[in-house]
């Protein structure tokens, strides 16, 4: 008699998902499915809409990573109208986006994925959550995390209109300049964010990497996948969340491709899968060869660990130190263990805070000239940024009245779709043996996807 195990819904992530595991007669895993039962149809119903509304309209795909959609959207509009933002606007956008990545990564560490590490592994399911985290790390640290997240979100409300949904992005700039008083708030908040990030890494080492159970998992082949990695890099091949070229490295770390976002269709392909509304992306040059790891398959990953793997380093000193520490500990680059996404994410928190401090000090930040008006008729534009969960591409085609005729969105978690499915199946196969299943085992299966911080509303849009 075969058995079926369902985790429904999967929890502590954005969006709807379920895991459906089929056991064979011996009670071992035969197949597993990671299903995403959600679909909105943004690519269709944005047809006919005014192009300038895209940054505020498409960001409603996701209330957890709206700023990333807003930024990719407004950059697509810059390209569509062939207009460059003035220096102040570029800084304001990068500042907003970087501040957003900072606080969104904290959301994952304290509310979503972090409870798997910070709360004792054998904890009952009612304790594996933010409230359990506060008990485990102490109220003082926990409340400081909540406070800094609140302050950084308030900063983005000041810059962009709302803590959640920024509205300030326009082709060629932003709607509102930064005043001198606002710069003071920016500087103070950035300094506080950096102080917090500096204390966060030691906490992760103490509670995470020194925790034998978690450390062993980060070294276990069960959670490891040999794939390609993609991320945005600057001229010196360092991580940047706002701009740069896309770089892809092979499982052995060698550069596989490097290209501007406008060339995405030459490198990436999408396919429909049955049983889910989440499409899978893969590398066009290699093709999709199923849920298999290794250099022959076009499966690739994005997001914090992928960005670290694809880049040569971090653009800020403290993050660079921690970056080196990670690869020293792992002993190789790329690092392939999915649970190292947690560590990589916190290295990015440190980078984001350092970068906020840098951007806050730029003299051009308070320049009142924040917008150039387009002079060319629109036709097509591609915008890219690194969302917290990975590379995000918006592509708009319009008529000459700037009414959208075609929209294509390549959204962070979608890039990871194949790898998420394989990670879950690999963990399930290794952990569910002879029909023995309990809450702790099933949570370890969930840890295999949760480390990616998937956003399933985004992935299906």
């Amino acid at each position: 008699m075969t058995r079926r195990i369902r985790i429904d819904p999967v929890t502590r992530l954005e969006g709807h998902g379920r895991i459906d595991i089929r056991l064979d007669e011996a009670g071992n895993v035969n197949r597993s499915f990671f299903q995403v039962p959600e679909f909105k149809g943004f690519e269709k119903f944005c047809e006919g809409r005014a192009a300038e509304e895209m940054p505020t309209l498409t960001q409603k795909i996701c209330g957890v990573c709206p700023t990333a959609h807003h930024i990719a959207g407004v950059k697509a509009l810059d390209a569509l109208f062939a207009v460059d933002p003035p220096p102040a606007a570029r800084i304001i956008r990068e500042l907003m986006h970087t501040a957003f990545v900072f606080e969104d990564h904290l959301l994952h560490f304290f509310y979503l994925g972090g409870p798997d590490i910070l709360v004792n592994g054998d904890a009952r399911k009612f304790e594996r959550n933010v409230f359990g985290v506060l008990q485990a790390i102490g109220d003082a640290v926990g409340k400081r995390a909540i406070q800094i997240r609140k302050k950084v979100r308030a900063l983005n409300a000041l810059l962009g209109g709302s803590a959640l949904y920024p509205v300030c992005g326009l082709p060629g700039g932003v709607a509102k300049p930064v005043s001198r008083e606002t710069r003071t708030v920016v500087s103070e908040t950035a300094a506080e964010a950096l102080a917090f990030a500096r204390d966060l890494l030691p906490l992760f080492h103490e509670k995470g990497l020194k925790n034998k159970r978690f450390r062993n998992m980060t070294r276990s082949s069960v959670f490891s996948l040999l794939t390609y990695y993609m991320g945005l890099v600057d001229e010196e091949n360092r991580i940047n969340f706002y701009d740069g070229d896309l770089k892809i490295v092979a499982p052995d770390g060698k550069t596989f491709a490097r290209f501007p976002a406008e060339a995405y269709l030459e490198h990436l392909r999408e396919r429909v899968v049955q049983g889910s509304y989440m499409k899978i992306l893969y590398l066009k040059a290699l093709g999709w060869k199923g849920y298999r790891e290794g250099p022959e398959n076009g499966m690739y990953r994005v997001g914090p660990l992928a960005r670290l793997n694809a880049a040569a380093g971090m653009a800020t000193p403290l993050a660079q130190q921690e970056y080196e520490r990670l690869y020293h500990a792992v002993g190789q680059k790329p690092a392939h263990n999915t649970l190292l996404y947690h560590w990589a994410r916190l290295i990015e928190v440190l980078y984001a805070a350092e970068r906020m401090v840098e951007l806050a000090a730029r003299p051009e930040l308070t320049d009142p000239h924040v917008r150039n008006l387009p002079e060319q008729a629109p036709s097509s534009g591609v915008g890219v940024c690194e969302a917290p969960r990975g590379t995000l591409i918006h592509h708009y085609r319009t008529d000459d009245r700037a009414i959208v005729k075609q929209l294509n969105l390549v959204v962070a978690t979608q890039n990871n779709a194949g790898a998420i499915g394989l990670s879950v199946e690999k963990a399930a196969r290794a952990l569910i043996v002879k029909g023995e299943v309990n809450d702790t085992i099933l949570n370890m299966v969930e840890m295999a996807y949760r480390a990616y911080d998937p956003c399933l509303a985004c992935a299906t849009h």
Partner: protein
Amino acid sequence: MSRKPKIAFYWCAGCGGCEESVIDMAEELLSVAEKADIVFWPIALDTRFEDVEALNDGDIDATFINGAIRLDEHVRVVQMLRRKSKRIIAHGTCAHLGGIIGLANLFDSRQLLECACRQVPGMDDPSAPLPETDPGDGQEGPTLAALLPEVKPLDRVVAVDAYIPGCPPTPETMAQAITDVIHGRLPEPGMVFAHRTALCRQCPRLDSKPDKIEITRFRRLYETHWDPEVCFLPQGLLCMGPVTRGGCDARCIRANMPCRGCFGPTERMNDFGSGAMALIASMMAGEDEATLARLVNSIADPTGLIYRYSLAASILGQGPGR
């Protein structure tokens, strides 16, 4: 000792923004968790559908449901939550009015899927089968929730006791609604947690709004600069403030951008789009047909403007299955 109130949060076709509006309560969320049992909240807690099924009917004091009804599965889940809950509160614009995803009702569900699965550039096989919802007997693939013919607001599927508007609602409003429940003050039927009057009343630019507005050409945001201190409307930029319920603290306007109506219609209106059309018509400066036609044509995307958040709740936009 009295029993702790039980509350739950669920999302249908939402974006997670309404969940963030709860998380953005920050420390206040911790005190909510002390005073109430949160029995279901997939974004933050590891409880599953089976745990909710196991509750007695009416066990939950209030369930906050965000997102629109898009899939058959949403109907089943909200019907179950309705049975288990004393009060159901529509949380956020999608549950209240269908939200932005209600714009999908301009198309049928097959068109939506065909676009995403076959027509966007980059698909490897433009003739690939669409995701099957029922793979049929003998197939090993699992079933998949199916799209309904149209997007619906929550109250078209189950009885809703109160509404929290906004995309997203403010954390302050969330805190008030949740605190009310915790203290046993369950909302009165039909209550809306926002102002009764229009956003203009709380707009920082109200003083610059003329009594009579005459627009000779509607301008688009990308083609013009505007005065950041003056009401958008006399500058020829459409702002939905006059027909939108207040309660958002004019957050978009403070960022120097016009209102798009996410808090829905004011108390006196029942259809946002018709109110918005009346507003636009009242401002058009022109008598002859040619002038009026030119004015109308200068509005880039009337549907996406006047029904941006409420098409699914409108009598016009209930989709092909109405």
